């Protein structure tokens, strides 16, 4: 009996040891880390790169020192819409500012905001939404430090036999909305802004990754999503989409896509934050001036996720969106008045509670050339 018990105990310890060994290196969370395929520095990472918060350097010193690795969490899985960020790597823009970005995929602004708030990434991309600003209200010390799109490019897309080009065209139609997203929160605002009774159309919930296949198989007449990623996808499937932007019909969430970071990094390394904002702006400008290079960069770095044809359209749509502010120098300045309007929209339609002033959520102090 004693020998059996001893054997069982030993066996259990072996099993536990195997489990601990197998699980020991796995990180938490649902995001994946995607480092650029061609890093801009050839030095071994563990010898020369440092964490973003650990070292404070001035911009001139940065150009002399080894690049600092910074983690940037996107809002969604890697796709062509992020080519404007990615092109900065092969173009050497991030390196000029002493940075080596590591890109992380996301699953929505809420997840990105949580990643930032828990220090699992240095910077993130998020829309000015209930989720992202809600983290601030709950004590998460985040700040929007620059914008990369002046307004959210949420639209109602259609076209597979039914062309919906205005809110009134939705009456009698079935529209799919991804639940728990900025799109679903702002859809009631769109209806209210255009005096449409919700009972006049059929709204169904569908997860984001089922929207395009569901639409193409005629499960619904239209769906709510972002044009930059979806228009090229639909064209790739042989459908010429019709769409109308929320921002053209009274629901303008501004700023659109923003760069966010956490207060800990702002306090420990404000110069790094400033450099990152400048690098992102320069990368976007470069993408606008060299769209082919932007697509080539994205496709080369992530060939499984990006195709040249889809990328060209996505970059084109992004250029259209930021074209209106490109003349501004710099263009990453956050429109604080627009943000105040957005906060009120979220209060009215997205159950956003305890709203604070715009400067509690955003700042332009890290735009190196200053904002007007």
């Amino acid at each position: 009996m004693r020998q059996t018990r001893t054997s069982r105990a030993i066996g259990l310890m072996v099993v536990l040891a195997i489990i601990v060994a197998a699980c020991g290196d796995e990180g938490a969370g649902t995001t994946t880390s995607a480092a650029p395929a061609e890093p801009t520095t050839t030095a071994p990472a563990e010898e020369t790169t440092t964490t973003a918060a650990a070292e404070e350097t001035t911009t001139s010193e940065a150009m002399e020192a080894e690049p600092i690795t910074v983690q940037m969490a996107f809002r969604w899985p890697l796709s062509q819409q992020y080519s404007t960020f990615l092109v900065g790597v092969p173009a050497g823009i991030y390196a000029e500012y002493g940075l080596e970005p590591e890109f992380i995929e996301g699953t929505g602004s809420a997840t990105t905001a949580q990643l930032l708030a828990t220090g699992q990434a240095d910077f993130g991309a998020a829309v000015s939404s209930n989720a992202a600003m809600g983290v601030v209200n709950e004590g998460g010390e985040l700040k929007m430090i620059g914008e990369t799109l002046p307004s959210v490019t949420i639209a109602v897309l259609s076209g597979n036999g039914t062309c919906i080009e205005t809110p009134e065209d939705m009456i009698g139609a079935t529209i799919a909305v991804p639940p728990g997203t900025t799109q679903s929160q702002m859809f009631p605002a769109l209806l209210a802004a255009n005096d449409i009774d919700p009972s006049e159309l059929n709204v169904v919930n569908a997860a984001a990754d089922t929207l395009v296949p569901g639409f193409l198989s005629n499960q619904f007449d239209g769906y709510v999503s972002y044009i930059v990623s979806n228009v090229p996808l639909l064209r790739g499937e042989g459908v010429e989409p019709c769409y109308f932007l929320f921002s053209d019909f009274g629901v303008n969430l501004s700023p659109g896509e923003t760069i966010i970071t956490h207060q800990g990094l702002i306090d420990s390394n404000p110069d790094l934050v400033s450099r990152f904002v400048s690098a992102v702006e320069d990368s976007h400008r470069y993408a606008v001036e060299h769209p082919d290079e932007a697509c080539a960069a994205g496709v080369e770095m992530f060939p499984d996720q990006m195709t040249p044809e889809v990328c060209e359209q996505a970059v084109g749509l992004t250029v259209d969106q930021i074209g209106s502010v490109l003349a501004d120098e710099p263009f990453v300045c956050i429109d604080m008045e627009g943000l105040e309007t957005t906060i009120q929209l979220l209060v009215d339609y997205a159950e956003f509670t305890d709203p604070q002033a715009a400067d509690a959520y955003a700042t332009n102090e890290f735009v190196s050339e200053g904002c007007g």
Partner: protein
Amino acid sequence: MRSFVLGLKRSWPAVTTVVLLVIIWEAWVRIFDLPTFLVPPPSSVFAEIWSRPGFFWEHLVFTATETGLGFLLAILIGFPLGVLVVESKLFVRTVYPLIVASQAVPKLAVAPLFLVWFGLGIESKVLIAALIAFFPILIGVVVGLQSVDRGSLLMSQSIGLGRVGTFTKIRMPFALPSAFGGLKVGMTLAVVGAVVGEFLGSTKGLGSLLVIAAGTLNTPLVFATLVVLSVLGVVAYWLIELIEKWALPWHEEKETGERQQLEVAA
């Protein structure tokens, strides 16, 4: 009444453990001032449920309906297939390997296709629940049928029972305890399947509620929904146990007797 009291007596350690864990959780959150968007205190979770029980009930009923229908469908698929595995060598050589291989496919990858093929209504959720739940039921039936006492089989031959008679009077009764084991696992997986289906597209249901709560960073609502989901899973499991006790009273008596013998020996 007696068995109810006995049941209560047996469950007090589990209840006490849960209460202790809740107290520790509440203290931990308050002492370390953890932000709600990371971990809400259990008091806010229960307040969320208490403040609108009808709201949670409505979603619970929706998910429970999908679960029940999916589970029934899983039984209709799993049971006959399990019998075929035991009774048909051809089936074992042809179809069974494909069934086993299909279990390695993550259902989350297949579920979006179900939504596209069968639509956003309840049908796709029922099918996803059945797809996830049928395999443990199948295995339970197979193991049960294969573990029939050889002596009993020989006896049935000697008294001329025939194949059908042997199956209904000998094999199935022997197989039922194991089959019920498969049913218990299948029931809890049917809950998972229904929720997975709702993740991908539903206007109601606990899965849909989870997606909305997570997307809007309403962590108390996330946890509250998980609590309600857990209750659904536990109740569903107990339901199967109850049916097992009614269907197999001799099995329950045998297990109780063996347990008592072990306690005496110890």
